[in-house]
């Protein structure tokens, strides 16, 4: 699947926050065989070189980066942050977040569409963090987005795919649009399920970073997305309500 004309090496997108150490972050990115990593921008005082050290670590990994606008609550904040990110990270890709509600970190879809329209017109390749709402999806595509990133569950909740019906409907409705489940994935099985549903990628952070052994979990997620993608290609059977014997009855001896 192409994301704005670029083929990623893997359908696993990995966040870079909350790891126990920079070394564990780097090892996790390698173990995950991540197709891209997400990054952010924060204030830095002149004395602290933390941001510079982080940037060299990411550059050395050689994985494509997707800067986010995490924590932005208004269109203006998100658009300005995207501009700053484009300069710092030298990419016009942006994971657009406009947060509308603090408890669930649900996107403000109205602000999101507006910010997506502005940024797309300025040449950004927008990856919008959205809900599974079909009407909002239509508006985002009309605003210039060529990728959609619906949530699975609230950010950091680890609850998996809360609305499988909605995610399936989105996939069916937009068969040719690259779709990424972003947020809420807690286990490799959730990632497998997303790929089985036909999603093109998943974006994961907390599930790996906050695992007891992040590197081992990163590897588990790599295998999980591989399993899900193969299952999708292999065309799964339809589920049914009643049993159907798998062993043939023909030729069964009469023993009663």
């Amino acid at each position: 699947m192409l994301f704005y004309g670029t083929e990623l090496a893997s359908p696993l997108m990995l966040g870079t926050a909350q790891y126990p150490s920079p070394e564990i972050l780097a090892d996790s990115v390698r173990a995950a065989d991540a197709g891209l990593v997400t990054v952010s921008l924060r204030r830095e005082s002149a004395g602290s070189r933390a941001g510079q050290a982080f940037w060299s670590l990411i550059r050395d990994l050689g994985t494509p980066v997707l800067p986010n606008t995490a924590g932005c609550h208004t269109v203006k904040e998100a658009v300005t942050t995207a501009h700053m990110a484009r300069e710092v990270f030298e990419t016009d890709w942006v994971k657009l977040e406009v947060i509308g509600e603090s408890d669930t970190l649900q996107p403000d879809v109205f602000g999101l569409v507006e910010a997506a329209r502005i940024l797309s017109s300025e040449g950004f390749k927008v990856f919008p963090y959205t809900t599974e709402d079909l009407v909002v999806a239509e508006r985002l595509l009309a605003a210039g987005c060529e990728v959609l990133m619906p949530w699975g569950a609230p950010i950091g909740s680890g609850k998996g795919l809360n609305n499988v019906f909605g995610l399936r409907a989105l996939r069916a409705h937009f068969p040719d649009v690259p779709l990424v489940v972003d947020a809420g994935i807690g286990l490799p099985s959730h990632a497998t399920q997303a790929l089985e549903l036909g999603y093109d990628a998943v974006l994961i952070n907390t599930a790996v970073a906050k695992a007891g052994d992040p590197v081992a979990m990163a590897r588990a997620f790599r295998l999980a997305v591989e399993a899900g993608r193969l299952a999708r290609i292999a065309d799964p059977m339809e589920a049914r309500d009643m049993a159907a014997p798998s062993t043939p009855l023909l030729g069964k001896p009469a023993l009663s």
Partner: protein
Amino acid sequence: MNIVVNDEARVVNARTLAALIDELGYGDARIATAVDGEFIPGSRRCGLDIVDGMRVEIVAPMQGG
């Protein structure tokens, strides 16, 4: 000049944003700047005058999800 940098009040001598970055010691660090909520690209820092009360934001790469 009394300005605010990353939410911290400062008295600075610099006359331009580019000079301010030097004065604060950022050197060649990979950063982006905004003034009073507006993005100022690196190419415009030399021509941007510092004025009293200005709010400057200086950001750098950071881990993100």
